[in-house]
């Protein structure tokens, strides 16, 4: 399912020969499959859980505020309790003392739920290969999107969110509870961004000089 808004000036004029009723239907009625509609709704109304561990959370909070405005992507309803949220951003270092708490919070999230791992620490332990740090949150949670950076810029988190939305929009889930196999259909595998964007990045020959602002 795909549609977009168009401005009033450039919108196609009512077509000659068609009845007013045809035009009314064209503009107001959509024929879609219910599961497509649900997937589209899910994609555009992610409710994140207000959860932060360390430095990355500050950049995540920056993404909520005016300059970056997460609300543009329908993900601004920050919930204070996991029971009302369906997405958790693991923003920061996952500590061994904190890991059982993170796991409990994840378990309390509503199904269907998604995990964004934000920043090097949550991705892999990053620069903290140290006794008190879990080497990546994927040691005990399933991760949907990894956002790299230390900490990632707010824009990077937004990109991660868009990738997650894209992926959610392609998922088809049963419309009610299902016992045993959940019957989730992943239309296509999540792409590795390094593979997609790599050639473009490597092709860059002129980098901005650090000597100028």
């Amino acid at each position: 399912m795909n549609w977009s808004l168009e401005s009033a000036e450039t919108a196609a004029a009512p077509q000659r020969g068609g009845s007013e009723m045809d035009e009314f239907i064209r503009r107001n009625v959509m024929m879609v499959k219910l599961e497509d509609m649900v997937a589209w709704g899910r994609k555009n109304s992610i409710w994140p859980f207000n959860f932060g561990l360390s430095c990355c959370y500050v950049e995540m909070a920056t993404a909520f505020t005016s300059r970056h405005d997460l609300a543009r992507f329908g993900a601004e309803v920050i919930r204070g309790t996991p029971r009302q949220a369906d997405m958790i951003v693991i923003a920061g270092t996952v500590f061994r003392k904190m890991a059982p708490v993170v796991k409990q919070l994840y378990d309390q999230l509503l199904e269907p739920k998604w995990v964004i791992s934000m920043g090097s620490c949550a991705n892999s332990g990053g620069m903290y290969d140290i006794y008190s740090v879990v080497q990546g949150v994927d040691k005990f949670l399933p991760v949907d999107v990894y956002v790299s950076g230390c900490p990632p810029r707010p824009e990077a988190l937004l990109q991660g969110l868009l990738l997650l939305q894209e992926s959610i929009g392609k998922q088809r889930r049963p419309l009610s509870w299902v016992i045993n196999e959940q019957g989730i259909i992943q239309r296509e595998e999540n792409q590795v961004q390094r593979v997609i964007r790599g050639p473009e990045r490597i092709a860059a020959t002129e980098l901005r000089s650090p000597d100028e602002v």
Partner: protein
Amino acid sequence: MRVPSTVSVTENLNAPVGVAAVEYLRAVFGDSILYEQVTCDAIPTLWFAREDIQRALTLVREQPFAGKRFEMLLDLTAIDERVRVNRTGQPASEFTVVYHLMSFSGNGDLRLKVPLFDNDLHLPTATVLWPNANWYEREVWDMFGIRFDGHPNLYRLVLPPTWEGHALRKEHPARATEMDPFTLDDAQTDIQQEALKFKPEEWGMKRASEDSEFMFLNLGPNHPSVHGAFRIAVQLDGEILVDAVPDIGYHHRGAEKMGERQSWHTFIPYTDRIDYLGGVMNNLPYVMAVEKMAGIEVPERVKVIRVMLSEMFRICSHLLFYGTFAQDVGQLSPIFYMFVERERIFNIIESICGARMHPGWFRIGGVAQDLPQGWELRVRELLDFMPARLDEYDSMVLNNGILKRRTQGVGAYTTQDAFDWGVTGAGLRATGYEWDMRKQRPYSGYENFEFDVPIAANGDCYDRCAVRVEEMRQSLRIIKQCVDNMPSGDYKSSHPLTTPPRKEKTMQDIETLINHFLSVSWGPVIPPNEVSMSIEATKGINSYYLISDGNTTSYRTRIRTPSFAHLQMIPAISRGFMVSDLIAIIASIDFVMADVDR
């Protein structure tokens, strides 16, 4: 900004109060003083036997020296000496406990050390003298396994209660990848959760009063109002707070152990992440401490660049505090305005350093690169823009009647309380005590700047906020002086231990090539010494106590952070208030958990 003078930090530290204290202790203890150590930071350092330390500490606490007192136990830590090579003259010791005392009125320091042996690791507690010794001693027990006799609750503080071993002992593995892979199945989760459960009886709390049952409320470690992974268990009578027990360690990244593994140069990025709102300001005490041991004098331009960037980060950090403080007492809008200003400052920082929050941009002997062309314009734009915004925020936040009623008279403490609990920074100045490291012990050329030290009178939540707001204006003043008077010259010292070395001194011939190669691959070798270097960080006194054993890495890196001390004080200042006041108190402290747990 005045012409640079030659005030050195060392002169400040050789203050009369320290000299008088040493003379007094000599007269009392005579030959019982095991050793008088000389360190390059010129802090008088005396070694005492375990039997004498409590008496020595008591005397230092009670006695005035040259009319001044040592008001604060600034730091208490330990050193695992078992594999240290260069300790000529020092008494035999396997584990040394270090007390760092500070006199504010006399502007001097004193360091006392106690040698201990692995088979007999215990000494008397100092909690009877300074209440803030409580957490420091628990941390030493947690990290080194040294027992403090008479400590009221010597439990682990930082590592999980189920942890085995003591992390800062040299035999404890440093890397997670040296240990068994981490797993977390349901059974283990239950064990860990059970271990974390708050048991009021352990803290001497009774469950009931005469006619009512207390309620125990667990706040955190994940709660929107505790500013990170921090947990506080509170005992409530109705909505009145009877007692509280803060629980930390959910944000321990092992920075001190990391310091023993990274080279002097490659530890710099880790310092950024200590007070993660302070950015490059965290680099400053560390690089200055290393420079002191290496004997590096940095050029004037470097000093001013460092000051300018540090003050920008001070504003960034205070803006975040300001916004979240208002938010925690119920004003949702200000933070959305304040983050716009933060972004503007980050734009400048990014154009200078190439990164936003953690540039890691200072270097041993300089900074990473020179200022880019056109930087003045950007900074001047900020200087034009900010003051009006700050005035607007005054009317929006500080003059707001509801905010005043929520925060005035809440969480107040006196200057003496602040000393007892190790409170520094805005928390100390809000009690009316004018003490700023930048004024009292100028470093990095702060003596050449004109700025005021804002203070308040009541020491409550509102005053702590008001002091920080005024500090932002003073920071703008300092930044303006930096722009107006930026000295020309090098952005790096020509000292051979400067890392990385200056390009024109490298790869000229085989000698310079080898030197460059070693300095970049192994890193510089810093001569054996001990140094402690403090700065006025965004949240209070941040101090690095470094020990070099003549190697490419530090032998012991001790990071004294302000937030650690401040959090410990929460129960003392919140008793009798409501739960919602506790939130205002927590917000007014302005801490980040990385600055607490390191």
